[in-house]
Structures are given as structure tokens and as C-alpha cells.
């Protein structure tokens, strides 16, 4: 069953790395955006909301193409990042992280936002009367009570990052060992007559990884739930 080629093992390892890094790196941004959308009102909020959802609404290859023309090495933003911060995405695994992060972002934000909206404002008021400034209220009360949403969002983001290939392959192509993820490998195999059996092996591996991720997340979610019920 698991007699994968070395190249396939590399793709598996790379996928894991990309999905984990994409999930973790996008988390703080996801929390910040979710907070803005859930708790503040500002001009252009609908716009922000729409931009966040965009990667869901557009075909992934279009998202990948948009990333390419904004963050590619000759694109204005991409060139700026490369020159001033040495951040280069194109044809690097970091670009795959970015693409997966962008694709997973709406899922992350929605889940966290839903949980923030469910936090009882009365507890935040209580925290304020005890002297906690807004930022401290957020970190000591709101955020911990948002944990179920954060876990749910991370699971969705991780899963989406594993399954993503349309945006990734369009943005950073398919370079074995650098940007070739399981999904890209599976896709490639389905394009070859007779590649189904090999694709199936990789599908099984993707399923196993996600099953493991789900079980870990359920465990955390259960602990968080108990904690948040105050037990």
C-alpha cells in the first residue's frame, strides 16, 4: 500500500509542512480580521468581508493567477517585498504556503468570527470594570472563550490547505521537492491515462493525514469545551 516513490514521500512531507505553516501563519491574521468583522463597525467593512470571501467565490486558478500578478517577482507588491524584506514567493514553498493560506482564510475567519460573536459581552464588561483595558479584555477573556472557533477554523484551514492545488499550482507551479504537494501529485496522476491506481494511493494518504488531524482537533476541542463550561 505505502510503497510510495521517494518523490511521493517528499510531496507528502511538503504538504504537511505547507498545510501546518499556512494554518499557523494565517491564524493571527484570521483572528484579527474576525475580530474586526465581529466587533467593530467601520467604513469599508463590507468590502473587507467580501475580499476575505473572494478566494472561496473565485475558481482557485483565478485566485492563483491574481496572486501571480500581484506577488510575482515582477509584480509591484512582490518586487517590493523581495527588495525590502527579502520575501520571495515565486516558485518557492513559501508561495505555496501563501496560496494555501489565502484559500483557507475565509474558512478560518468565519469560524473564529462565529465564536467571537457568541462570546457573552457581559463577561467582557465585567473584565472592564476590573480594570482591564480593551486589549487585555480581548486577550484574557474574548480570545480564550473563542477557542472552539479557533480550533474549528484551524481544522478547516488545515484540511483546505491539504486539498488545495488550483491556486498553488497556478501561483508557484509544480516543482517536485519545492512546491509539489500531495494534491498536485494526485492531480497530475489523474491526468495520465492509467494513473488512477497511483493517485488512489496518495488519496488514501491524504485521508489518513486528515483523519489524524481531525482526531487531534477533536481532542483539543473537547478539552476546550469542558474548560469553557467552567468545569
Amino acid at each position, binding site marked *: 500500500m505505502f510503497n510510495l516513490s521517494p518523490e511521493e514521500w517528499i510531496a507528502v512531507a511538503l504538504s504537511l509542512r505547507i498545510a501546518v505553516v499556512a494554518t499557523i501563519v494565517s491564524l493571527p491574521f484570521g483572528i484579527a480580521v474576525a475580530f474586526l468583522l465581529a466587533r467593530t463597525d467601520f467604513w469599508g467593512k463590507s468590502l473587507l468581508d467580501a475580499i476575505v470571501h473572494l478566494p472561496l467565490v473565485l475558481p482557485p486558478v483565478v485566485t492563483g493567477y491574481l496572486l*501571480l500578478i500581484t506577488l510575482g517577482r*515582477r509584480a509591484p507588491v512582490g518586487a517590493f517585498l523581495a527588495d525590502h524584506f527579502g520575501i520571495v514567493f515565486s*516558485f518557492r514553498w513559501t508561495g505555496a504556503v501563501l496560496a494555501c493560506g489565502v484559500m483557507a482564510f475565509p474558512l478560518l475567519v468565519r469560524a473564529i468570527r462565529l465564536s467571537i460573536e457568541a462570546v457573552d459581552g457581559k463577561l467582557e464588561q465585567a473584565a472592564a470594570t476590573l480594570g482591564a483595558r480593551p486589549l487585555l479584555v480581548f486577550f484574557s477573556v474574548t480570545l480564550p472563550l473563542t477557542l472552539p472557533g479557533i480550533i474549528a477554523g484551524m481544522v478547516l484551514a488545515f484540511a483546505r490547505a491539504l486539498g488545495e492545488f488550483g491556486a498553488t*499550482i497556478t501561483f508557484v*507551479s509544480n516543482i517536485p521537492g519545492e512546491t509539489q504537494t500531495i494534491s498536485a501529485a494526485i492531480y497530475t496522476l489523474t491526468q*495520465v491515462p492509467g494513473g488512477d491506481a497511483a493517485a488512489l494511493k496518495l488519496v488514501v494518504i491524504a485521508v489518513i493525514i486528515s483523519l489524524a488531524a481531525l482526531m487531534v482537533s477533536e481532542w483539543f476541542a473537547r478539552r476546550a469545551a469542558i474548560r469553557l463550561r467552567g468545569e
Partner: protein
Amino acid sequence: QDKTITIFAAASMKNAVDDINAAYTKATGVKVVSSYAASSALAKQLEQGAPADVFASADLDWMDYGVQKKVIKEDTRVNLLGNRLVLIAPTDSKLTNVTIGQGFDLAKLAGDGRITTGDVQAVPVGKYAKAALEKLGAWQAAAPKFAMAESVRAALAFVARGEAVLGIVYETDAKVEPKVKIVGAFPQESYPPIVYPVGLTTTAKPEAAAYLNFLRSSAAKAIFEKYGFSFLIKPVS
């Protein structure tokens, strides 16, 4: 309604096939519906009983697959169109006329940049590119520099955006992208002929035969050639 003909065609043929359909409808009053997707997806759909009358594949493999699965009438199959493989670079590249022949050093041309083409296992243009480079003895050295795209269009975009310094694409695509230039053509004998076969499905309506004939006509030839394809057969009249 019943006479409507359905063609499943590789996505890269959309422009030309759309025009041909319009012309055909105008000439005969028969409506043609086309579904464009990857040849692989279309072939598998035919295998599952998709209601198509005509299949136009972007490569021989998936047409062979259809024949083998008995969803294509083998005797109607024609290798209709051809294309050429070219080496491209961004317009502002210093590279110009590259002679592509035995012993040409693609890796050196790329320097520390990337070379792009379609996936060499899966996407037809990639398969042709790899075959050509192997034949010319350039593959070994250049392989590590390859960034493989999901389609020829994506490869073209990489070069147009300057992400990749070189790309191997079809001439048809290269010609319409202003941000790239063709720096060399691969010798025809270095790769298997690039062929777009067409054929009727085993469930095709009788009316489809006339449409297939139209695809082989000189009117169709003109349209295909307008989009840069080479017409591989003698047009029927």
C-alpha cells in the same frame, strides 16, 4: 432540439471550436453545444456515458483511451490538427534567436532562472517538451530547473510575468501573448507530432457525421489556421 450536436473538446481549442460551431449553425441550422474541459476529464466522462457526439482531444493518449474503452468509433477518428513547440522568453529578455538542435544547452540558457512548461507527466505540452529535450540531450541538465504548470496557459503566464526566464509552449499560444517572444522553434523531428485527434463517439447521433465532416472542411481549416493550428489533413469539400 433533438438534432443538437454535442462536442466535448479540449479547453485549449475553445476559440476555434466556438467559431466553427457558429459557422456550422449558420450554414446548416443545426445547433452545436460544446463542453470544454481537460481532455482527461472529458475522456473519463465519455467512459461514464456522457451525452457527447464528438470528442476532440488535445493529445493522442486520451483519444486512445477512448478508443480502448470503446466509447469512440475508431473508424471515424482523424488526426486533425497540429501544433508546434517553441521556446519563449519574456519580451524584455536578452535572449534572441536560439538555435535549438542536438547538444543545445537549455540549462545554461536559463542561468539560475526557472524554465516552465506544462507538467511533463500530465499536460500534453509538457510531455512533448520532455520528449524533445530528451531527444536533443538537454533534459538531464535542465530537469532540475523546471517549474511545471497546470496547463500551457499557466506556463505562458509564468513567462509573461517574468517568473520564469524560459518556457516551452505551443506556437499558437505564444503568438497571441504580447509579453513573450519566441526565441526558437524545436525541430519538428525532435518530438512526436503534436496532434489533436477528433472522432465520433459510439453513441453519436447520425447528424454528427456531417459535423465531423465540417470539421474536416476547408472552411474549418481557415478558422483553425487563423488561431495558429496547422491543419494536418487534406480538407474535404
